[in-house]
């Protein structure tokens, strides 16, 4: 059993003495429980989950973007990095958490390091691909017109790389939200924790599982939709015409 050091007064898993009929008999879904425990269980878990995911994606994106910018021109550098990324992704999240524990202990940092690693792995190839997908013609003409390197990057390459980068971000965001549930194996945080606890009961409490699960999926979908909206805003030229 994972020792959650200094766990707060965690989510309340009802024992069968106190609930109403729905809860006691473990029906498929009890709205009453959800209403009763939104504040002390579901909502904190949700905010923790958002926090975990957001930090991981934020840091991951910054690292992936910087590295991508520095190496996309030099295939000899980005290739091995991409290969390494693919390998990293095969490591089971549970295992990765534990492997990091000797270095950073049982803290949020450990979880974040792992999540950032996974995010990086998904974002880096996309950013490189996006930057490399800029049509050579456009670059040639930009050079011929007298753009400096910096101007070319800012006015031509980045805008044209955006669609691919946003596509990668969507994948990364959805995956990170999904992966963050596993953090519960290490820390009492995130939407995975209620599920984790519920599974430990001899008769797992359905409502809690479904509620936390639904919230996670909803969170992922909302994030995805936000990114789609962002893409439409940033990439008006893809909406029209053949592209």
């Amino acid at each position, binding site marked *: 059993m994972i020792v959650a050091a200094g766990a707060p007064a965690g989510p309340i898993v009802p024992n069968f003495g106190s609930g109403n009929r729905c809860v006691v008999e473990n029906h498929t879904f009890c709205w009453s429980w959800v209403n009763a425990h939104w504040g002390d269980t579901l909502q904190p878990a949700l905010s923790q989950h958002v926090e975990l995911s957001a930090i991981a994606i934020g840091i991951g994106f910054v690292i992936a973007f910087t590295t991508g910018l520095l190496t996309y021109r030099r295939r000899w550098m980005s290739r091995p990095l991409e290969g390494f990324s693919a390998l990293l992704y095969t490591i089971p999240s549970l295992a990765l958490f534990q492997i990091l524990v000797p270095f950073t202990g049982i803290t949020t940092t450990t979880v974040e390091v792992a999540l950032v690693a996974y995010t990086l792995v998904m974002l880096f190839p996309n950013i490189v691909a996006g930057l490399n997908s800029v*049509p050579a*013609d*456009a670059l*040639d*003409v*930009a*050079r*011929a*017109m*007298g*753009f*400096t390197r910096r*101007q070319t990057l800012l006015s*031509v390459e980045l*805008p*044209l790389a955006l669609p691919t980068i946003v596509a990668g971000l969507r994948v990364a965001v959805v995956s990170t939200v999904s992966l963050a549930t596993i953090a519960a194996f290490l820390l009492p945080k995130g939407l995975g924790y209620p599920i984790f606890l519920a599974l430990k009961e001899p008769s797992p409490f359905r409502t809690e599982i479904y509620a936390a699960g639904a919230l996670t999926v909803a969170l992922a979908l909302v994030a995805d939709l936000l990114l789609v909206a962002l893409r439409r805003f940033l*990439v*008006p*030229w893809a909406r*029209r*015409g*053949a*592209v």
Partner: protein
Amino acid sequence: MTALAVFGRGSRRSNRSIEGSPGAEIRLEHVSKRYPGTNSDAVSDLSLTIAAGELCVLVGPSGCGKTTTLRMINRLIGLDSGEIEIDGRSTRATTVTELRRGIGYVIQEGGLFPHMTVAGNIGTVPRLLGWSRSEVKSRVSELLELVGLDLTLAERYPAELSGGQKQRVGLARALAADPPLLLMDEPFNALDPVVREHLQDELLRLHRELAKTIVFVTHDVDEAIKMGNRIAILRQGGVLAQYDTPDSILARPANEFVQTFVGENRALRRLALRRLEEIELAKPTGAAKRLPEIAASASLREAVSRMIETKSEALTVVGENGETLGLVRLGDAMRMLG
């Protein structure tokens, strides 16, 4: 010329006259280039002078270095040896970006930026040079009109345009900052024949109006003959085979290579270069009324063709309003070829 007449203001576009900035003279002296890792020159000791306002076509088989030469003019490719001068100044005298902002560059399908509107594309160099928004806007409208595009296209994206439209936008973009020199790299290659012919005529018209120096690369010798004031025929390895007017090249090919490259029927093709309104016509005789007619805007070649068609050795040349301008005879055509 309405578009250009509007454009009176001065400071940013300093040597701006009503006609637009004059073309620049380009001088290539002993230019050579060999790509690393190859064992033959791409361009070999090329020397060429292109007069200001001239449309010079670089033509030759693939591997002859025509594109390399073009791209050395705006330093997209570096010279191994030799000099290139524009209006007397070496291309190495200024920074690369400054040089390129003064040269228009057009490639196939225009090389438009997919993420910018037509207006955005056209305004690229002016914006780089720091023009104000209203200046850019009026210039964009001006140019759209100049290249024969509807003003409503300004807010469209390249993906929504046809090949011919894209090419016109590319041209407008190259002309935006009013450069004295235009470089064009096989611009009409990807277009179907009808559109291609249209655009060739458009470019010729623009060249007459704007009098800029244009260096035009193509692999199509017929296009070269149609477009060029002078043609530079290059052979493999960037060696200059002949540099002359189209008529001279057709009449007196310098060597066997040029002869083969230019192809057959040279005499007839020379005839196509002259129009009836440009030559001296014979006085109309009384018999003129019974001769078949031909418009003065037709070429000598069309005249000869009509003569064969109508089995008549002479035709009456007729002006725009139907007035008789003179006669053209088969003998005249033959003498023209000199």
